[in-house]
């Protein structure tokens, strides 16, 4: 039996190595997506079985005899020992967001190879390890949050930096995901109607759950899902109606304002009325779509049409500027490593673990699955014809303002596409036009629709599947906007309570309305900036979000490294040290380029200087001077924000290194804040 086990893992290793080598070395021929599926799943399995188990046994020394916080602090609410597969599903649902879908889609501009390698390698030695170790640390500390652990293990400064970072990330995150939705829906009456319809559906669900059938969440979500499907058909009818279509054909600015109003309402209305029912619905739809997409990819096994590497690895890409290093690693955040996951791993999950060894599949395994979602998104994007992919994702400011100009520019890059082809494709999916839809969501929806339609229904229902995919992406992005605005409001209320105490009361209506307005204004400003940006907005905002998210991962890895040093000295420092050093290098390289690059498309300050020179030399028409000055201000604001991120990285690093040196030299106690050992009393039946 043991020999069979060895043979199985040896065979799996050979398959993983063979597929990875095949992907990495293949040039000139199209390859099938099944290579990516096999390479990734086999590598995750080996990472899980060997690397994660080594960390669990030798480094964490997980002990199933030790009572977890779920058992010791059991209260029937937050702390509750729960079956490991249920915790796994719950944790995966909590970490799965739009990041692993949008990031790989955008990074496909470099070709499929850089993204695939980073997603697989980054997850196995970075993201999965981070999630697993933070979950372990929190589990051994009564389920404490990342901020609390940073304060206790590193110092007060680390904790403060963590809070400021989260607030700043929240603002940029909400703006950038809002921009993804706006770009997906502008000029699309079908999509706009479908998403607008999810608002009254959510309100109806809220009332249903509160007053008509309290507690029947699954039943209510099923009704909600059926209504959403009906709304997709309704959207098609609206788009074809001469009377109704103009009402739902909105510009980018109009959609941005609608998104801002929605964020404000979601932050101020009772949670049970809008946010909670939306959250239930979007979570179920998200999980369902992820598994249907996996089945669809296995069934269709699409060929990858994009090459392994495109010419844009040199930094001249139309979707966002910057070379493959460091920008591929900033663009793909959540699919490889995400700081935000550390918040979830130190949130509800550690309070639900019933046996310490369950942290192994929950922490490491869930992130491996999330990484596989990123691989699927990459496959969906790369299965599009390259010309189509670039026509959808490139802004007018780069490729030209008319379909003919855009297709001519893209064809000169070696990716032939015609305006007629794009027009036919737009008609097939029920859209007026698919040009300049930056943000990743529409191209991902096209790829997904192609896979779904090949599996069920064929070309006749391509439009339905496209809008189903748009609905799926927009629905959970809007849930993130709703909950993020609310959390941002709470953080702001807490900060402002030091200035005026009543503002700290979460239920004080004037304070709630005021702080909601402030937080909405903050991310709304960046959203409007992105919508007005002639380069599509994604070029400036997505790298900022990527840097911010990786900065949070840096904080999480600093906390994890500190705890490993306190447990074992320098012996296992490489486990978190290697991904930490990589992230620091990537964050600094990307941040410095975004601020100081002399190329106007890449460097914020260079673009500001270029625009200022254009004003000074009279090259800008008088009617556009005010708008140009706003753009100059925005460039400088983005540069300042990026600089602030780098300062925050430096502070947390210096503070952490100071602690590590003090612990290793014996100047500071290696005592951790771990809870004392208590023998478990849970029986095998209870876990």
């Amino acid at each position: 039996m043991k020999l069979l086990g060895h043979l199985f893992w040896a065979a799996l290793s050979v398959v993983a190595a063979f597929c990875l080598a095949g992907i990495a070395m293949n040039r000139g021929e199209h390859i099938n997506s099944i290579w990516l599926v096999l390479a990734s799943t086999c590598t995750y399995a080996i990472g899980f079985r060997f690397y994660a188990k080594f960390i669990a046994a030798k480094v964490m020394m997980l002990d199933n005899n030790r009572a977890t916080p779920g058992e010791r602090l059991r209260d029937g609410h937050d702390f509750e020992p729960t079956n490991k597969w249920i915790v796994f599903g719950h944790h995966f649902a909590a970490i799965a967001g739009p990041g692993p879908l949008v990031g790989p889609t955008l990074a496909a501009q470099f070709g499929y190879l850089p993204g695939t390698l980073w997603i697989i390698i980054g997850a196995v030695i970075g993201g999965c390890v981070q999630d697993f170790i933070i979950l372990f640390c929190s589990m051994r500390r009564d389920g404490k949050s990342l901020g609390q652990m940073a304060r206790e293990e590193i110092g007060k400064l680390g904790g403060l930096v963590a809070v400021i970072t989260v607030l700043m990330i929240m603002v940029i995150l909400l703006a950038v995901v809002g921009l993804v939705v706006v770009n997906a829906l502008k000029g699309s009456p079908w999509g706009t109607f479908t998403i607008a319809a999810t608002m009254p559906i959510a309100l109806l669900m809220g009332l249903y759950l509160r007053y008509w059938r309290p507690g029947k969440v699954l039943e209510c979500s099923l009704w909600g899902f059926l209504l959403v499907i009906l709304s997709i058909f309704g959207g098609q009818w609206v788009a074809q109606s001469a009377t109704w279509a103009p009402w739902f054909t909105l510009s980018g600015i109009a959609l941005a304002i609608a998104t801002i109003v929605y964020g404000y309402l979601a932050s101020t209305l009772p949670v049970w009325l809008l946010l909670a029912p939306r959250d239930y619905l979007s979570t179920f739809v998200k999980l369902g779509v992820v598994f249907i997409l996996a089945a669809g990819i296995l069934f269709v096994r699409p060929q990858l049409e994009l090459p392994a590497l495109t010419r844009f690895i040199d930094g001249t890409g139309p979707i966002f500027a910057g070379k493959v290093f460091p920008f591929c690693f900033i663009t793909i955040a959540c699919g490889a490593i995400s700081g935000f996951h550390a918040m979830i791993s130190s949130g509800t999950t550690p309070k639900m673990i019933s046996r310490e060894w369950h942290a192994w599949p929950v922490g490491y395994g869930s992130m491996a699955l999330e990484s596989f979602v990123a691989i699927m998104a990459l496959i969906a994007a790369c299965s599009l014809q390259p010309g189509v992919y670039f026509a959808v994702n490139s802004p007018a400011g780069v490729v030209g303002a008319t379909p003919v100009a855009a297709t001519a520019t893209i064809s000169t890059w070696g990716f032939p596409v015609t305006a007629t082809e794009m027009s036919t494709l737009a008609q097939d999916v029920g859209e007026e036009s698919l040009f300049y839809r930056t943000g990743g969501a529409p191209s991902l929806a096209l790829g997904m629709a192609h896979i779904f339609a090949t599996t069920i229904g064929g070309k006749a229902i391509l439009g339905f599947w496209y809008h189903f995919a748009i609905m799926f992406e927009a629905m959970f992005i809007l849930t993130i906007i709703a909950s993020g605005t609310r959390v941002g409001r709470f953080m702001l209320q807490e900060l402002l309570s030091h200035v005026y105490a009543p503002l700290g009361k979460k239920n004080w209506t004037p304070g709630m309305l005021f702080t909601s307005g402030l937080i909405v204004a903050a991310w709304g400003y960046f959203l409007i900036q992105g919508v007005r940006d002639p380069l599509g907005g994604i070029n400036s905002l997505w790298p900022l979000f990527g840097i911010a998210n990786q900065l949070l991962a840096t904080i999480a890895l600093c906390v994890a490294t500190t705890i490993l040093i306190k447990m074992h000295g320098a012996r296992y420092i490489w486990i978190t040290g290697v991904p930490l050093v990589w992230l620091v290098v990537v964050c600094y390289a990307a941040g410095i380029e975004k601020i100081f690059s002399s190329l106007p498309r890449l460097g914020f300050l260079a673009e500001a200087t270029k625009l200022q020179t254009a004003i000074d030399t009279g090259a800008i028409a008088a009617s556009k001077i005010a708008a140009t000055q706003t753009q100059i201000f925005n460039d400088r604001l983005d540069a300042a924000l990026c600089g602030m991120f780098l300062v925050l990285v430096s502070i947390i690093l210096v503070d952490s290194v100071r602690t590590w040196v003090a612990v290793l030299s014996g100047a500071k106690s290696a005592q951790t804040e771990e809870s004392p050992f208590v023998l478990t009393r849970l029986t095998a039946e209870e876990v």
Partner: protein
Amino acid sequence: MKRFFQTVLAILREISDEGPYQRHLAAHGLKHSPEEWRRFSDHLFAHKYARGKCC
């Protein structure tokens, strides 16, 4: 196969907060009522939505 579907259903019940609600009722010796669900969900949502959704 039956066990697999039972686990899937249990995950869905956990995500939908129906599982935690049943545990809450059992832990406190309570019976389901509209008022109890509202009390439970108000408490739950206050904690749940004090944290952001993952990106």
